[in-house]
């Protein structure tokens, strides 16, 4: 932890050098730290969306959960509105930071009605004056996410995946947070429903001015909703840039391969753009390659890549890339 780190007051959320190591049993006695997030830094302005993309297992969920302190980070500084987030301050910040989960099935308690699920944050923070007030708040939340108010007394298992995700979003909105971590909030949904839910996220942002950390493994989904995008690989950020800039001008070899994997709507452009097929698998986070984490799969790898770890450097206009040869 860097006690002298000065957060920038412009940012709503600021993460500096976040490290999250999980002790993993290897062999009979020893444990090895699994570096799920290793030196991640980024910042989000009020009302802004930062997209976080990367293959599954690269540590996106870990970053999101450490950020709202579901995990206690191994190292690093997290600031919310310039205030350091730690065990002491988190209690007072719970109202302002919320999360929407990936799995629409396991994220809602099967023994609770929709009303009680959405009302739980209100109950915890005692945010109502009377039962009627509580109900009014819940109904207006349901309306906000496009749920039928008549269904307030129903149980979650009676709803479809998309509707369940809306219930989860209403729950996250209940305390009027300024920041929501959306961890693959649309990945489990059908493509047509994905679009509806993403549009709803955008509408809610326009109405409420809430900021998102929008996690997904699909660059296309993230491009649509994000102002800025951070690309993650094996626990590290490899490139961050404005959303359009990143799509038009990807610099890091990993980002390029991610973008080339996105199906293009127009067959003519699709033909002319060469797809970069990544060879090999993602290395195990327990056996991290030396130097650049991407070098085992990189076409441009040189000797230097194996020796030294590239740091994020600014390539102009806030386009940050961690690569020696690009």
């Amino acid at each position, binding site marked *: 932890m860097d006690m002298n780190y000065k957060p920038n007051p412009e940012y709503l959320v600021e993460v500096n050098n976040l490290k999250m190591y999980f002790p993993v049993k290897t062999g009979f006695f020893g444990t090895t730290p699994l570096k799920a997030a290793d030196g991640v830094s980024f910042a989000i302005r009020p009302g802004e969306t930062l997209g976080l993309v990367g293959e599954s297992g690269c540590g996106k969920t870990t970053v999101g959960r450490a950020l709202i302190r579901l995990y206690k980070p191994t190292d690093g500084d997290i600031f919310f509105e310039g205030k350091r987030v730690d065990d002491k301050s988190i209690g007072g910040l719970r109202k302002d*930071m*919320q999360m929407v989960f*990936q799995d629409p099935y*396991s*994220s809602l308690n099967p023994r609770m009605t929709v009303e009680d699920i959405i009302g*739980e944050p209100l109950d*915890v923070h005692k945010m109502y004056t009377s039962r009627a007030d509580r109900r009014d708040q819940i109904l207006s939340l349901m309306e906000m996410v496009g749920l039928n108010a008549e269904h307030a007394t*129903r149980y979650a298992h009676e709803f479809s995946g998309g509707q369940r995700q809306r219930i989860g979003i209403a729950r996250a909105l209940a305390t009027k947070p300024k920041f929501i971590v959306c961890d693959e909030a649309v990945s489990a949904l059908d493509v047509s429903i994905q679009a509806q839910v993403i549009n709803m996220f955008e509408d809610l942002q326009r109405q409420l001015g809430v900021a998102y950390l929008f996690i997904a493994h699909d660059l296309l989904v993230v491009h649509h909703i994000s102002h800025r995008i951070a690309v993650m690989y094996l626990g590290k950020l490899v490139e961050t840039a404005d959303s359009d800039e990143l799509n038009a001008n990807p610099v890091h070899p990993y980002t390029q391969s991610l973008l080339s994997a996105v199906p293009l709507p127009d067959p003519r452009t699709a033909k002319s753009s060469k797809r970069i097929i990544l060879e090999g698998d993602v290395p195990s986070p327990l056996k991290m390659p030396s130097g650049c984490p991407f070098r085992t799969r990189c076409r441009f790898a040189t000797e230097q890549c194996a020796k030294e770890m590239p740091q994020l450097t600014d390539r102009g206009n806030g386009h940050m890339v961690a690569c020696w040869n690009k």
Partner: protein
Amino acid sequence: MDKTYDIDQMPKKNPLSMQIDLSKFEKATDEEKKQADVMSESTSFFKDGMRKLRKNPLAMFSIVVLVLIILMITIVPVVVPYSYSDIITINGKRDKSATNMAPFQYSKLEQQYIDEGGKVFPHIMGTDELGRDYFVRVAYGTRISLLVGVFASVIVLIIGVLYGSIAGYFGGKVDLIMMRIVDVIYSLPDLLMIILLSVVLNEVLKFDGQGILARLGTNMISLFIVFGLLYWVGMARLVRGQILTIKQNEYVLAAQVSGAKSSRIIRRHILPNCISVIIISAALQIPSAIFTESFLSFISLGVKAPMPSLGSLASAARSGITTYTYKLIFPALMIGLITLAFNLLGDGLRDAFDPKLRR
């Protein structure tokens, strides 16, 4: 929006085309749209479970059997004018001839008394070798056996749930140490332990006087202690496993993100999602305790005479098995009925309420 669906604007169908003729379609009215939106009747988990249970004939049959048995053991000792411990008396005189009678048979003295105009309550299941009414003894024995079963299962429930939920909720090193202790206890041969403990406790514990404890005898008390010491481990493992899985669910994380404290999370999220499994397994514990008690009584480590239990009745009936077969049949039938009913009911409850079997 509506314009696009205007029938007049639809392209005319080419008669040779295999395409669907769009003009044959009508726009859904608002009412029809609403119909598609209506969901089935809302059911709570409990209501849904009860409905499933009511549809299960075996479970319903078991409930009926159990209710009948419970009615019997509460009503019989009140209605039948004999006591489980005293020899039958006629006109204040002990009836020495009323031993080992068949069902509905009267002794000489009783017959005489009836002929003189007196009334004698029939011996529905006959009498035993000391001249005690067997029906009352079987009813009392059932009472004791059920009591033992329920009591043992409550002990197991309390200890197992407390121990298992502490291990499961706190996890880590606490869990590791607590579960190794469980493993050790689990690996002990339980019947051998019960027999050894009963023998030892018999020497250590001595109850005098007239209290229920003294009447049950030290054997029963040691049986409860043994249940408390040994049989909770299965329950503890079950509860811990349940809590570990439930803790993984994202709704628990969501509650944490909302700022809910541990007590609220346990109360609102963890307990309601594992309570049915716990209760089902406690219900299944009852017949196993009854069976153990019967077994111990059978090898004369059970309740203290003259208090009967189903096991001790069966054991006593062994000597005259060829001549007085009915004396073995009645308690054995009772044990069989009770264990079968509880097992079937437990299975029915599991089918109806176990969340893993639904969706």
